[in-house]
């Protein structure tokens, strides 16, 4: 039941108009079929694979940093000499290189890794299928969006090779440091413009597709939670990115045209007055940056919630608890995310009214967050839980995100933030949400939808060999950060705090965290082997190997161009599992009404 006649994919859709797709019937060459395809599934896979490569690369960057943190000043055997005398003389890391690695690790993980995989990859592949649509609303714009991302990625990678190296002012690129930095920063700015363009094109596509291309019978509250999550995420991307794009243009003006948008008057660097007319405001950069970057963190987490919800409903054989509350929470969270950003700026000299405003909105935003997490946890109650690999990752997400979320609370209160701001505590907090949080959810999604994309199952045994060590090591990396941060060690320190007296009692944690990081890398080997091996040798499956209820499981595995052999229709809600009185423990959305 895996492959089907492609000609049936041309079946007319209800309400469709005569829009002729170019090259629909003529056989497509290799380039048009695989490289420049407008098929959302191909584009989704390109996004996912590229995103995974960047995640791996970004991980390598930080593993290098962790050597320096564990053994400050010590030469890195063999590998150290590969980086040349300008970066690692004698194999020993220079502070400038450490900063380069830090800034690019953050940039690459957030903008080139997680979001392209979570939104570009999963969103593109799954969304039209779950909506019962033949493709995205604008397939060519979808293609443009991927290649814009690719260009942005190439620009970011190329920046390592310019004189002075890549950006090294943090992923946050605060002015005036970033304005005065080497040419790598200019490339970072251009790279961001490509990435933001890609994001805007993609978000428009996702919103129009969700609003307009839902299959007959798929009313709003019959949508899988994954679709709601991607929809809200797209609105965040649409409205939050442009101010960063504007800020990027302004910083480029400062760097290339010598303007002073972010350059204050009277700035002196190393005893020399800078050659800028002044009158600018470094805080303006922070406002415009965080206006995007705060909603961005919800862009990082919402698709993860979407994936976890699908995997949990499927593997508890129960409907989601509080589906409607979860949907309303998504919208409330999305809206609130636009008015909390200055909790990243409590230390910029803001007055008490401002601080009170932002800490209040930040506390309020934790409410929908908790509602979402709690609903997912309660969804487990009374379920017949299947502990397969996607479910293990989804289950682990819950407490990991819980830790990440709870540790965010003192950061969001302006007074409690005072000893914690810019320490390792912050790094621990945000990594918990995005690493054992989002990344675990993304792994769950890969194991869950791999059979739909390839027609084959990944090995569950290798999956568990991937999961358990990853869970242990990832906590080994990030839990000590709270300890180190509470001890007062600042982030972005080249030596991990070694030159400070107060840090001496906690320095040994640096080595512990580094060993955990390298252990985590080893734990990914079963995943990499599993992923590639299963494409050709995994157990073959039919359309619906997980006995799931949502529309994507009506399509063949893998789906042909056009997705469905017969146009699907939704007859019921998305999580009709274990409905009393029905035979079997699930009733798919796409099954016609049974005679009662």
């Amino acid at each position, binding site marked *: 039941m895996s492959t089907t006649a492609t000609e049936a*994919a*041309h079946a*007319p*859709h209800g*309400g*469709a*108009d*005569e*829009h*002729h*797709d170019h090259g*629909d019937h003529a056989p497509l060459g290799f380039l048009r079929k695989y490289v420049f395809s407008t098929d959302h599934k191909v584009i989704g896979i390109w996004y996912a694979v590229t995103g995974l490569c960047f995640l791996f690369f970004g991980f390598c960057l930080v593993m290098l940093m962790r050597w320096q943190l564990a053994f400050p000043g010590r030469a890195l055997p063999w590998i150290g000499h590969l980086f040349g005398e300008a970066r690692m003389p004698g194999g020993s890391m220079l502070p400038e290189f450490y900063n380069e690695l830090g800034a690019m690790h953050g940039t690459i993980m957030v903008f080139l890794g997680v979001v392209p995989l979570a939104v570009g990859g999963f969103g593109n592949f799954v969304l039209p299928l779950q909506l019962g*649509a*033949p*493709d995205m*609303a*604008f*397939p060519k714009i979808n293609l443009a969006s991927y290649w814009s991302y690719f260009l942005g990625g190439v620009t970011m990678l190329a920046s390592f090779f310019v004189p002075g190296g890549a950006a090294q002012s943090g992923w946050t690129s605060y002015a005036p440091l970033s304005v005065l930095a080497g040419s790598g920063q200019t490339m970072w700015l251009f790279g961001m413009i490509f990435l933001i363009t890609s994001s*805007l094109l993609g*978000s*428009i*596509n996702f*919103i*129009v597709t969700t*609003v*307009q*291309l839902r299959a007959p019978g798929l009313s709003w509250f019959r949508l899988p939670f994954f679709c709601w999550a991607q929809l809200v995420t797209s609105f965040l991307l*649409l*409205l*939050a*990115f*442009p*101010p960063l*794009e*504007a*800020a990027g*243009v*302004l910083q480029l*003006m400062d760097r290339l*045209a*010598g*303007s*002073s*948008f972010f350059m204050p008057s009277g700035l002196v660097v190393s005893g020399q007055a800078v050659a*800028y*007319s002044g*009158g*600018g*405001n470094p805080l*303006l950069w922070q*406002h*415009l940056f965080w*206006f995007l970057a705060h909603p961005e963190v919800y862009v990082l987490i919402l698709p993860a919630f979407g994936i976890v919800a699908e995997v949990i409903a499927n593997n508890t054989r129960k409907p989601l608890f509080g589906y409607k509350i979860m949907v309303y929470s998504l919208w409330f969270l999305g809206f609130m995310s636009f008015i909390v950003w200055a909790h990243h700026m409590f230390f910029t000299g803001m007055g008490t009214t401002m601080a009170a405003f932002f800490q209040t909105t930040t506390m309020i935003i934790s409410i929908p967050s908790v509602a979402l997490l709690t609903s997912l946890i309660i969804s487990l109650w009374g379920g017949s839980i299947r502990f397969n690999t996607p479910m293990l990752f989804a289950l682990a997400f819950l407490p990991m995100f819980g830790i990440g979320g709870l540790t965010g609370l003192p950061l969001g209160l302006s007074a409690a933030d005072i000893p914690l701001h810019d320490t390792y505590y912050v790094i621990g907090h945000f990594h918990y949400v995005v690493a054992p949080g989002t990344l675990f959810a993304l792994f769950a999604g890969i194991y869950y939808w791999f059979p739909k994309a390839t027609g084959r199952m990944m090995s569950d045994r290798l999956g568990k060999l991937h999961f358990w060590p990853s869970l242990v090591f990832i906590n080994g990396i990030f839990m000590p950060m709270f300890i180190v941060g509470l001890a007062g060690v600042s982030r972005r320190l080249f030596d991990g705090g070694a030159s400070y007296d107060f840090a001496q009692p906690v320095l040994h944690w640096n080595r512990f965290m580094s060993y955990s990081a390298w252990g985590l890398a080893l734990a990914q080997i079963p995943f990499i082997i599993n992923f590639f091996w299963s494409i050709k040798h995994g157990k073959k499956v039919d359309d619906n190997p997980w006995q799931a209820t949502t529309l994507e499981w009506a399509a063949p595995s893998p789906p042909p*161009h*056009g997705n469905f052999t017969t146009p699907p229709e939704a007859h019921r809600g998305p999580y009709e599992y274990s409905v009393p009185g029905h035979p079997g423990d699930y009733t798919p959305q796409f099954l016609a009404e049974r005679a009662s």
Partner: protein
Amino acid sequence: MEIPYTVAERPDTGLNNGKIGIWLFLASEVMLFGALFATYLMMRTGAAVWPRGDTILNVPLATVNTIVLISSSVTMVMAWASLKRHDFGKFRLFMGITILCGFGFLGIKAFEYAHKFHEGLLPSKNTFLAIYFTLTGLHGLHVIGGMAVNAYLWGPGAKLWKTDPEHFTNRVENSGLFWHFVDLVWIFLFPVLYLL
């Protein structure tokens, strides 16, 4: 494989895909220019002294430009209305005038910029000039973008009129929406930069 609602309107939303797409794009542009106007406010309130627009910039020229752009907005919507009346010839005429007005606008702006550069009035000189060049420069890039799309619809893109007139009319309407937005931004830029 056909994508539904590319031309026909979906019954429950009353909209076709392209219309929603262009409005979403315009929403993102509102945020883009919003951030730049926020920058203007920050620069102005942070400056010790802020020149009144007409002491540095050429108000008569910019007034002409305002008239040119608003006129082009009218001709743009008339181009669309002509298509609704199935008058392809009038469409070509009005769209052509719209594109020419675009050239006129850019020509005047180029003259203004050249004059400023000649006088040494560069973005690096002070924050007034910095935000002036950035705001009008980005606006100008949007004018160029709009003109490019309009030129495509006037020229090679007009083929679609023969095979799917309704689809073509919608494309012209959507391009028009972008063009009106560019006009709208200028309606605020002009007084803020030149008159205040």
